[in-house]
């Protein structure tokens, strides 16, 4: 999805923006917003790259190579401005979680949750040797594959679920206060430019 975050005023941390905003007529604000949008874009990219260096919990737990999800999100960041707004756009699957809780449902029957390092960052369809295993007692299901050299032993690659709930993770984006400071920085850039 492409998510849009519109920068809003935080009166206590945007003194120069407040003074400008009170004097600029509505049809003269686009240039100010260009500066603010550019700084909002810079903040969002920089923040996503900063947290990408630290957030690999699932990959580390599985001993897998990170997928680079946050770096890709950083590269997708753009800004858009108008007379009355400056917004940041982020086009990345999963970024919606920053804005609220997410319930993921499968397009077919199951969602596949990787539980093996070789499965992390890959879809089940990229393997041609997976077998479906159901545990009717525990009512669980997995996709597994034969362990090489073990005869008939199987190892689980994916756990299959019918839905997945992800709580909102607001830390995927800068705080509202950080965006307020970026807005103020844009306003100061604008003052210095005219």
């Amino acid at each position, binding site marked *: 999805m492409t998510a849009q975050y519109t920068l809003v005023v935080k009166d206590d941390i945007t003194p120069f923006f407040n003074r400008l905003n009170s004097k600029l007529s509505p049809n003269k604000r686009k240039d100010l917003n260009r500066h603010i949008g550019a700084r909002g874009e810079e903040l969002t990219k920089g923040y996503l790259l900063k947290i990408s260096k630290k957030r690999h919990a699932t990959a580390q737990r599985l001993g897998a190579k990170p997928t680079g999800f946050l770096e890709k999100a950083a590269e*997708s960041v753009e800004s858009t401005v108008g007379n009355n707004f400056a917004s940041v756009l982020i086009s990345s699957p999963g970024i919606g979680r920053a804005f609220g809780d997410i319930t993921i449902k499968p397009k077919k029957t199951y969602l596949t949750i990787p539980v093996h390092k070789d499965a992390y960052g890959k879809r089940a369809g990229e393997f041609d040797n997976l077998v479906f295993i159901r545990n009717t007692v525990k009512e669980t299901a997995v996709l597994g594959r034969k362990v090489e050299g073990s005869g008939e032993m199987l190892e689980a690659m994916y756990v299959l679920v019918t839905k997945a709930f992800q709580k909102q993770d607001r830390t995927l984006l800068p705080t509202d206060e950080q965006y307020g400071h970026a807005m103020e920085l844009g306003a100061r850039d604008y003052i210095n*430019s005219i």
Partner: protein
Amino acid sequence: MPNAIPSPVPMTDALRIALSRGVLPTSLSTEELRQLPAELRARSVFSARTANAVYLQELREVVNEVVEGEMNHATARVTLLETLRAMGYTPEGGFPDSDTPVPPAVEGSLQDLSSFRRLDLIIRTQERLMRGAGQKQRGQDRTDIAPAWELVRINAREVPRDWQTRFEEAGGELINGRMIAHKNDPVWDALGDSALFDDALDVDHPPFAFGSGMGWSEVFAGEWESLGGSDQTAVVYEDANQLPVPKVSTSGLDDDFLAELKRDLKAHEDENGKLTMADILKGDAS
């Protein structure tokens, strides 16, 4: 709580550029494709030794969904793999009933259109090319705000290429050890030139080369000036009559108000230091 407005969301620059492209079926190799005009390659979705227009159209649509943030790379790979299987593609035989034969490929190699390596490289490269083109376009629209680019590492690499040496070989000059140049500097064109670097993509924007992991960060006007940067759009006039009419501020702000604002800002910065993005990112801004 962030102000999330999921729809209608404006179309991103990267998606707009991706949607504008057509497909270019071709049996040419990567080296042969480089002989085609750069403009043609920029306007087309193509892949070395991929002459099947139907598959290329699917590739184009999958890349567009990735750029739009609607599809992750794993799903993109599986979608293309399923298309290849449905079309009867094999590495040895290519596409059945194809009028344009291509040499057989070793299964699992980069030449095998269905291999993980090939699919992953194509999708990553195509996405990064669209994002880079969008960033360049957006950057050109605001050279007054941020006149320069800095080449920075976005993705870690086990064996990174020496980009500082490349930057200098492309005609760039390091500024305080940083790879910074004006947005209109020819170094950006040279950095992506396959005549200079074998792995270059013949573009003047990130990623510049296959699997580079490199990107741009904007250098804003204040920092560019403090680094001694010049306005590369400056023109030398030999005749005073050629001088352009002075630009009048269109901000609509009263001169006295503006002067007071600038004075107050300078006084504030003299007392508190300048507000910087580094401080904001660290959480040290006040």
